[in-house]
């Protein structure tokens, strides 16, 4: 078995009166697409933000390529190869689309000229090339999601964290999104995606990880997980009480 790219060890996170993550340990192998699912309030976003570095866990450790990154700030994590998107899109609205992506590609390129070239290549990859000169604020919301993906990809990540990138998309747009995620994986990028809509995640991911009430209750192939009585109970309630 190959060395895991990302490991979390006993991640626990307490908000004032709530244990949002309770002893979550997870290994993600290189090249994997992992879907992080669970009902509302399961602690998906908390766990996601701890991996991205936006939150510090109360206890537990995050390891990336074997080294402890628990205390690393988001900007530092990006430098070592962890990129993310946001649940609510955050575009740089005073800039045009190409410039938005340049902010990401500058991390790996030596000059802003090279960065612009790299940014344009990424824009074509996410099929946003025709909008390169448009102000980011003028994009439609599915386009903005693509822009966020392009920006994250421009930093050349090893691990890409996607926070509900399919939310609010029409079925056709979601289908295009799924194709895009597949193409991203074919670049060799490992993906962890938080997603609400089961029909989207299940056919796409190699492994589904289910959280409920802050605990990791199931992890396995999508078909296995959806038949797991614990998962069914988490989503639909206990059978005996139904």
């Amino acid at each position, binding site marked *: 078995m190959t060395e895991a790219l990302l490991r979390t060890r006993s991640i626990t996170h307490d908000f004032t009166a709530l244990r949002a993550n309770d002893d979550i340990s997870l290994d993600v192998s290189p090249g994997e697409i992992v879907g992080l699912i669970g009902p509302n309030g399961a602690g998906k976003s908390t766990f996601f933000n701890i991996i991205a570095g936006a939150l510090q866990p109360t206890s537990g450790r995050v390891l990336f390529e074997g080294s402890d990154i628990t205390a690393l700030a988001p900007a530092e994590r990006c430098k070592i190869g962890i990129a993310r998107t946001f649940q609510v899109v955050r575009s740089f609205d*005073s800039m045009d689309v190409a410039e938005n992506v340049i902010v990401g590609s500058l991390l790996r390129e030596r000059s802003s000229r090279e960065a612009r070239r790299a940014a344009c290549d990424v824009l074509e990859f996410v099929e946003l090339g025709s909008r390169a000169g448009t102000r980011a604020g003028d994009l439609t919301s599915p386009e903005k999601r693509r822009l966020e993906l392009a920006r994250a990809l421009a930093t050349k990540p090893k691990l890409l964290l996607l926070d509900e990138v399919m939310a609010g998309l029409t079925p056709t747009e979601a289908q295009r999104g799924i194709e895009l995620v597949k193409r991203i994986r074919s670049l060799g990028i490992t993906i962890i995606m938080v997603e609400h809509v089961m029909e989207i995640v299940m056919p796409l991911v190699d492994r589904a990880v289910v959280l409920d009430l802050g605990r990791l209750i199931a992890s396995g192939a999508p078909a296995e997980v959806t038949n797991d009585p614990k998962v069914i109970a988490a989503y639909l309630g206990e059978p005996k009480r139904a």
Partner: protein
Amino acid sequence: MRDVPPNPSTSLADRNLAASSSSRRRQLLVALAATALAACVPLGVSDVYAMNVMILTLMYLALSQSWNVLGGYCGQISLGHAIYFGIGAYATVIVYLKGGISPWIGMVVGGVFASWIALALGYFCFRLAGHYYTIATIVIAEAALLLVLNWEWAGAALGLQLPFGPDSWATLQFGRNKLPYFYFVLALSLLTWLIAWWIEGARWGYWWRAVKDDAEAAASLGVSIFDSKMAASAISAFFTAVAGGFYALFVSYIDPQSVFGFQISLLITLPAVLGGIGTLWGPAVGAVLLIPLGELTRSYIGGSGSGTHLIVYGALIVVISLLRPEGLVSLFRSSKPARGAQA
């Protein structure tokens, strides 16, 4: 047969690069042309008063453009830039009076010192978000004013007077003929514009604008928010102080209120706000409109320090923010700006 249709085989990257560099080149040419044009204006103007107004206009243009580096591009709204202006003015005069050192060097000394102060203040203040940062800058500039007011060695409330000497480029002293000051400050304006122009196409420029638009998203792309603000702040302070040094030489007498006062901070900020924050031309448009207007109203209706010119400023700001919240330069690009690829 000059308009060749774009070659479909050229890549997006090539087209986008070409569009962006031709747009930048055009901006540069316009700036150089505008400077050349401005350089000709004094040939037709002999009135001393008009000359003074033009010099002040260009000085505030340079100041506001320096402010724009931090406030406009990096989004850190300072209302205390008088502290850097004052430091530059005092450093230049003190270095000359007490050390006999050329004011040219004095201006650079003032600039470097102001940058250090900006970094020291930034170290503490950039932990504050948004409005709290702005309030901190006001308070710190006021504190600096009080310090200098009580600083006996630097003339305290009486201020410092430069001795009258022969007209000379070496000391930047010109008694009657103000023309050299005009060219000096015109060059300074062009220099600050060039800094902003360079920033727009440079690594720091992209990072700063990202920090301004959404700091959290910028950080997620590997941008150091703190370093960005510190760098913008140091550059902004440097040029503000150089302009402060120029002002001291131009008026040859400074006192704490006239260089550290809050009105200076406002006059540094307003042209950029009026013309368009975070744009190349905003400070220029704002200064050319605002400063002569302020001078005229002050001399014709204001009179004995009643502050009528401030009412005019206030009214202008209200009108602009209602009609053109993005500043006057947005009038010139009612549609989409000609940047990037039009593919």
